[in-house]
């Protein structure tokens, strides 16, 4: 891959890197390298997972030594070229090697194995890391049953959230009779706060293609569909290129590698509906209908796309499969716990010091993930809770931080593994507001087919809104809980059945916050605007008028250089004055 004697410079250009200004960094490096006539190879790569310090630039010396630089803007890019590449003196103040070791070193990267390492747009680079060796091995040395057996023995479970054993799903789909079968990749990553599927497709699209091919061979399907969110344009572009390149190289199409196995892949862009992450809704959407779920059984393995046996797996699940086939089920199963084998990718976000993507063996504790790899809470504030599994998941308090991360332990807490989103919250996050936020989301995304979800979530949202506004009656807390259980039991699909989880877990672990809102009309996190009162401390106010200028309702009055006052009647609690004051004179209660 790397020419001997040539320095390689890589820029992380996934959505996160680009959002942080990665293209400008890339262009600056390109110009500087060209202007100075340097014999350096400049490359694009995916996301290494340290999203908080993007754009990341890696300089790899001819002897293979890695120098990693973080938050590289145009100026830093010029310094790297001038000091490191031209003068051989890597600017020490920009290096993040140690931090990279702390974050990446402790991980076990299987589905993320190539992300941030190879150029995702290059088939050659994927092949150089052993890519498409798994499908070659399967086609030449293994029967479809052996492939299924290998996946089954690896213990791999669905990474999309439900955790159904992948090998078992494959076996069922293989056993069901059908003249045509389908493989579907669920890349409709809808959980707001999880972005591993995007990152895998952007960083290593061929791994997903190869995983789907293996599934196709195993179950006897010759067609695959990837259902990707339209909100992920870069992922779609890179996947399209990967499919084209694989086709041109004879890895997709008729009679692959002379084996007689044929497989074709198509991309279908989602159109923005969270419920389409539910498999039967996804299938309806693929068929061009409104994405509404239906009752199961029949399961997609029996009657899926166009009523044919269909195997639906998530992006991360597929990305694991080639590794398992090449390295063997035992190696994969050596990681993890008894019932949750292998590794899992987590998206760390919220009030996290080092937000990004990590992949760790199942069974490590939440504490190790959040305070170890994630570096703890930002600004060293007090940890309050962590939301796992997005709108379908739950909120776990500090007392349960030693829970091991595996499907079953997490389910026991009331949360779920879900797709692996972890949103960390600190003392300034209001738990009632969090529950309200998720209910609002689910309410918007409910397809409306069943009453429990359509009306139940609406009523729950109304109660939660009243609580955050300090207008709820005492008995409404019981009503909320009762409704939550009813929706959980009565809803048609996974979206509705899991929608009450954020409410139930916050009620279980943070009931005191609900009670403070209801009985004391007080928001302990000082986050719910309706329950706050802004006042000005006359002793600290020097009358600079900064707050008065920023007040949208002219509620602040006072003479210049004299203490100011806030008219509570006019105040809309926007918080502008609090942000504007440089003397900490504005108080919030």
């Amino acid at each position, binding site marked *: 891959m790397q020419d001997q004697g040539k320095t390689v410079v890589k820029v992380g250009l996934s*959505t996160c890197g680009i959002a942080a200004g990665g293209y400008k960094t890339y262009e600056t490096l390109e110009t500087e390298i060209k202007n100075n006539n340097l014999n350096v190879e400049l490359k694009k790569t995916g996301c290494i997972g340290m999203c908080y310090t993007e754009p990341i630039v890696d300089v790899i010396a001819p002897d293979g030594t890695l120098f990693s630089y973080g938050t590289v803007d145009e100026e830093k890019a010029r310094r790297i070229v001038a000091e490191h590449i031209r003068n051989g003196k890597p600017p020490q103040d920009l290096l993040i090697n140690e931090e990279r070791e702390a974050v990446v070193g402790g991980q076990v990267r299987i589905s993320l194995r190539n992300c941030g390492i190879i150029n995702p747009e290059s088939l050659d680079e994927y092949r150089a890391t052993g890519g498409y060796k798994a499908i070659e091995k399967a086609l030449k040395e293994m029967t479809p049953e052996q492939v299924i057996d290998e996946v089954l023995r690896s213990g791999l479970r669905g990474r999309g959230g439900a955790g159904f054993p992948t090998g078992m799903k494959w076996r069922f789909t293989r056993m069901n009779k059908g003249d045509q079968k389908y493989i579907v990749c669920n890349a409709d990553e809808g959980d707001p706060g999880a972005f591993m599927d995007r990152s895998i497709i952007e960083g290593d699209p061929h791994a997903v293609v190869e995983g789907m091919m293996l599934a196709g061979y195993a179950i006897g399907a010759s067609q695959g569909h990837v259902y990707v969110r339209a909100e992920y344009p870069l992922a779609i572009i890179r996947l399209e290129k990967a499919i084209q390149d694989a086709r041109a190289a004879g890895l997709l199409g008729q009679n692959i590698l002379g084996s007689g196995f044929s497989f074709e892949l198509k991309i279908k*862009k989602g*159109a923005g509906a969270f419920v389409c992450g539910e498999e039967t809704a996804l299938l309806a959407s693929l068929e061009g*209908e409104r994405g509404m779920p239906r009752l199961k059984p029949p399961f997609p393995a029996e009657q899926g796309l166009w009523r044919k046996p269909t195997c639906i797996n998530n992006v991360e699940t597929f990305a694991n499969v080639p590794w398992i086939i090449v390295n063997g089920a035992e190696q994969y199963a050596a990681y993890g716990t008894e019932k949750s084998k292998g590794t899992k990718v987590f998206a760390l976000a919220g009030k996290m010091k080092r937000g990004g993507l990590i992949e760790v063996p199942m069974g490590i504790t939440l504490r190790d993930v959040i305070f170890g790899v994630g570096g703890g809470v930002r600004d060293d504030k007090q940890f309050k809770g962590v939301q796992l599994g997005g709108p379908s998941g739950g909120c776990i308090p500090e007392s349960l931080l030693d829970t091991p991360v595996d499907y079953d332990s997490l389910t026991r807490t009331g949360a779920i593994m879900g797709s692996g989103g972890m949103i960390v919250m600190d003392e300034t996050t209001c738990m009632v507001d969090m529950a309200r936020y998720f209910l609002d989301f689910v309410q918007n995304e409910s397809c409306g087919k069943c009453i429990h979800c359509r009306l139940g979530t609406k009523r729950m949202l109304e109660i939660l809104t009243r609580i955050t506004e300090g207008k709820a009656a005492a008995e409404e807390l019981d009503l909320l809980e009762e409704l939550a259980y009813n929706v959980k039991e009565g809803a048609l699909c996974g979206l509705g059945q899991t929608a009450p989880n954020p409410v139930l877990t916050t009620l279980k672990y943070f009931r005191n916050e609900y009670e403070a809102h209801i009985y004391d009309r007080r928001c302990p996190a000082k986050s719910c605007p309706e329950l706050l009162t802004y006042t000005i401390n006359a002793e600290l106010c020097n009358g600079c008028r900064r707050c008065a200028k920023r007040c949208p309702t002219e509620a602040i009055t006072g003479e210049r250089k004299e203490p100011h006052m806030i008219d509570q009647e006019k105040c809309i609690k926007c918080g502008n004055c609090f942000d504007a004051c440089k003397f900490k004179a504005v108080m919030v209660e």
Partner: protein
Amino acid sequence: MAGTAETLGVGIIPYEKIDEIVKKYKGDSSAIIPILQDIQELMDYVPKDSIAYMAEKLGVSPAKIYGIVTFYAQFRLQPMGKYMIMLCEGTACHVNGAKLISGAITDELGIRGGETTPDGLFTLEKVACIGCCSLSPVMVIGGETYAKLTPDATRKIIKEYQQKEEAAQN
């Protein structure tokens, strides 16, 4: 390239182009979603008249297509402003103050989610997650991502766009 409502003329539907799109999918009625995506790519929105036309071509009822258009968040029935502000309201952005950003935009432009300013410059669209959670709160304007926003930074960014427009007009 997508045309804007202005360049294409609002209300004028290029029927021959819609024919081409429908033909591309071989008149397949299961391809309603990709056909609508292509129409929106062309027009920036899905004009109501194009729904009736498409229904006739595909041999399905306009109600069915309308049902699909209104089901999926991606489709718009009204033309959007020159600049689309996509404000992320994902969990990470919410925890890091997306509500304040949304307030600042509404303050500055007088529009809420799904609305367009009277001058046709800005449309505010609230989206669930654009997948760069570690840079939250985020918004995207015309393909450019703005990360780690504060209400003040947001106001400044919007003013820059307004000034750019004013300068272009003079």
